[in-house]
């Protein structure tokens, strides 16, 4: 297996993995496939796929400007690969964006509904237009193979200069506008990165990245197809890249000084270290390495330095896009493996298309041999020994398909259905109320409870006979079971019926068919009701009618039981404050979690609350 085939197999595996995740992304939405959150609504799909992708595709406009505007014809050999990279890069950005958008089928809305004040609107339009321009710029290359397209091809070749100029204009705009995106969030971005000249810094670093990317990509393809890299030609690009990076470094330093943020450079914060690492990787180290003529002209060093610069500038985009956003609430974003799989899959797919075009069209002067063209080798029959000679060969395309399918299957295997709650409510076992005349109801034992005057309530409701009003269900051999015996969790409904007690041999010696009907699936629905055996389980005259043996949460139970009376008495006594939370919850901190309250109140407003009508009581 040669280098290209090994790489292609790896890329197909990644694409297969991403394909399975993509299905989950569109079926189940962003919440279950990503680690995005309300505090971090943008993640790796924006930071890497969109911001990094656009920057990585900057080689297209740099090289076309060099060759067609500045007429440096010696760079002609890198034009076609650079334009192809840019075209596929922008296509990858568009595809990546489809994954990130919550409503990707509405992406065309940007064409119809305009908001010219929004930098994102501007970026969107520029990317759309520039993708078209790049398509038209590259079209003549595949069109060479089809004589029927010669007419269109000739026209496009003639229109090359205006196309190139438009492409440069559009690139300048959206490369800088990606920086403008963050101008509106001065309080979100760390002061080491936030700057009013962010657009300018993005543009300069994009030019440097474009140059570095051309060097990187030339070396990569030369390595893959065992060609001689144009190291001498590329070294002059490296020289230019060094100058651009020097300007960038100067602009960034002056910016920090003018904004009086130099003290931040030595702050004890991991983001300061990140800043230093980023600047070293993207600017300082490449400048030094590209400045030494011996290293600049060496193939290995040139390739490595370009790689460093590429990684550094992409890191810069990731930092601005999310890593360098200090969150005071301590929320933290780490991409899930599914997000990374999609990002890697989009890049891999673009690389596969790149290699395909490279092998089938005249991107280079001479086309490389198609590494997949080896025919399937069949074993031959040796008539003398009557044996089959040779091992059956496997065509590369079969290998790729196998890799793709296996990876997709693996991906599906790892995608487990997350519960929609994603986190759910923690189990909080309720505790029994404590005390005698005054009950201290503090179910979750966190110190914030309610003083419930048990004796007063008992007297008011009519003495010992009235117990059943509130104690609406008593367990066997129990007179007035405590609330927490059935309502066992603070926030979650629990089953009041304990199957294990009934089924275990140490329990009631019950065979299945004493409760469950024969010949039916044994579920709660097919079982007989509890009060068939336990005669006095639900006493008459209770304020709450037991409809099912699924006990609601402890908090909800307390509120349902108390509030009905409170609302009634508040009207009778003309005391509206009796219905207010702070009538019982004297300590304000008790009622702090609004969601708890919402759940409780929704339970109160819900349909399954049954309070007896007044007539029934009388």
């Amino acid at each position: 297996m040669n280098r290209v085939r090994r790489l292609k197999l790896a890329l197909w595996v990644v694409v297969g993995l991403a394909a399975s995740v993509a299905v989950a992304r569109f079926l189940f939405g962003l919440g279950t496939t990503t680690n995005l959150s309300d505090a971090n609504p943008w993640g790796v799909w924006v930071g890497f796929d969109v911001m990094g992708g656009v920057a990585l595709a900057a080689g297209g406009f740099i090289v076309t400007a060099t060759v067609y505007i500045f007429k440096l014809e010696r760079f002609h050999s890198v034009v076609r690969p650079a334009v192809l990279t840019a075209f596929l890069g922008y296509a990858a950005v568009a595809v990546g964006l489809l994954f990130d958008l919550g409503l990707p089928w509405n992406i065309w809305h940007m064409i119809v509904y305009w908001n010219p004040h929004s930098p994102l609107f501007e970026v969107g339009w520029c990317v759309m237009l520039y993708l078209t321009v790049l398509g038209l710029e590259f079209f003549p290359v595949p069109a060479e193979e089809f004589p029927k397209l010669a007419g269109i091809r000739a026209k496009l070749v003639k229109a090359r200069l205006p196309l190139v100029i438009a492409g440069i204009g559009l690139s300048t705009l959206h490369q800088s506008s990606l920086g403008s995106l963050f101008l509106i969030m001065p309080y979100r971005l760390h002061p080491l990165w936030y700057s009013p000249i962010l657009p300018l810094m993005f543009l300069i670093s994009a030019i440097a990245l474009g140059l570095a990317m051309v060097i990187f990509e030339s070396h990569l393809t030369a390595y893959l197809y065992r060609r001689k890299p144009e190291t001498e030609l590329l070294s002059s690009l490296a020289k230019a890249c060094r100058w651009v990076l020097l300007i960038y470094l100067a602009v960034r330093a002056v910016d920090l000084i003018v904004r009086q943020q130099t003290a931040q450079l030595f702050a004890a914060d991991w983001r300061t270290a990140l800043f230093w690492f980023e600047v070293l990787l993207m600017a300082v180290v490449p400048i030094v390495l590209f400045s030494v003529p011996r290293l600049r002209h060496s193939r290995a060093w040139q390739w490595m330095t370009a790689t460093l610069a590429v990684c550094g500038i992409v890191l810069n985009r990731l930092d601005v896009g999310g890593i360098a956003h200090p969150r005071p609430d301590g929320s933290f974003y780490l991409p899930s493996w599914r997000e990374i799989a999609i990002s890697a899959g989009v890049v891999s797919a673009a690389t596969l298309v790149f290699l395909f075009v490279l092998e089938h069209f005249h991107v280079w002067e001479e086309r490389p041999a198609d590494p997949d063209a080896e025919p399937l080798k069949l074993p031959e029959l040796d008539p003398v020994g009557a044996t089959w000679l040779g091992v059956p060969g496997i065509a590369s395309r079969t290998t790729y398909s196998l890799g793709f399918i296996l990876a997709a299957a693996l991906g599906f295997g790892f995608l487990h259905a997350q519960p929609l709650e994603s986190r759910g409510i923690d189990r909080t076992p309720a505790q029994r109320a404590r005390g005698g005349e005054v009950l201290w109801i503090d179910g979750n034992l966190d110190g914030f409870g309610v003083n419930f005057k048990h004796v007063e309530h008992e007297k008011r409701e009519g003495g010992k006979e009235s117990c059943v009003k509130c104690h609406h269900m008593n367990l066997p051999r129990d007179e007035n079971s405590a609330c927490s015996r059935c309502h066992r969790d603070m926030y979650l409904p629990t089953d009041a019926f304990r199957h294990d007690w009934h089924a275990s041999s140490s329990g009631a010696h019950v065979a299945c068919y004493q409760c469950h009907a024969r010949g039916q699936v044994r579920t709660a629905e097919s079982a007989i009701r509890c009060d068939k055996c336990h005669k006095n389980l639900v006493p008459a005259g209770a304020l709450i009618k037991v409809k099912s043996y699924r006990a609601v949460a402890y908090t909800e139970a307390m509120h349902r039981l108390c509030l009905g009376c409170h609302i009634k008495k508040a009207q009778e006594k003309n005391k509206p404050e009796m219905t207010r939370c702070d009538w019982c919850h004297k300590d304000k901190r008790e009622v702090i979690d609004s969601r708890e309250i919402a759940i409780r109140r929704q339970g109160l407003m819900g349909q399954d609350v049954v309070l007896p009508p007044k007539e029934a009581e009388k």
Partner: protein
Amino acid sequence: MKAAILTDTTKCNGCHECVAACKKQNHLALDLPRRWDAGDGLSAKNWTAIVEGPQHAMVRKHCRHCLEPACASACPVGALHQTKLGAVVYDSSKCMGCRYCMMACPYGIPRYDWQAAVPYVRKCILCYDRIAEGRQPACTEACPTKATIFGDRDQLLAEARQRMASNPGKYVDKVWGEYEAGGTSVLYISNVDLSFLSAGHTLAPKPLPVNTKVAMEAVPFAFTGVVACMAGISWIIERRMKMQNGEDEPK
């Protein structure tokens, strides 16, 4: 008239009547704690929440309805926009789900319906249909202690000043929302510092959309400039190359 809400945190007892009224008014479904919650009680199904400030102060948190909203300026398709009365509202039929509004908001208010396969941005809409009819929002109507009241912005500002003057020493001498980021329709007075509502930052009076507006207004000029520059350079270099070739040619 500019619709506004004034919340006096010293009067709030945290009873959550506003939260319940908001849920009922906007038909918001049951909500459970989720992985993606920011932890302040707000979510796609909770448009207002009571958060605990310093010294156990009860502070109602919801959309501030900025006079110059950063979210509306950021939205590439104009799904978020301001009504005449000052409510910042959302048109879900335009939205494409880029979530730039959530990044742009200095108060971190807009929330996303992360669990949905067809998700939308959700936030308080100041009951814009109710206030257009001349009624007040559901939350202020429900408040039993009148801690949060609805009215005209100028009148509420005067009311806030009057409360501060008649209770010297009770309040911090500041109406939150009067000037921050261009001013907001939702105003607060309190006995504690409320900068935790804007992630601990004290917002400058400069409206946030101004930052991007400067850059966006430069766009046509930048484009024309770059295109003209490139065309000019190309023309000059081509002409010089032709002249050079012409001179080199033997006569």
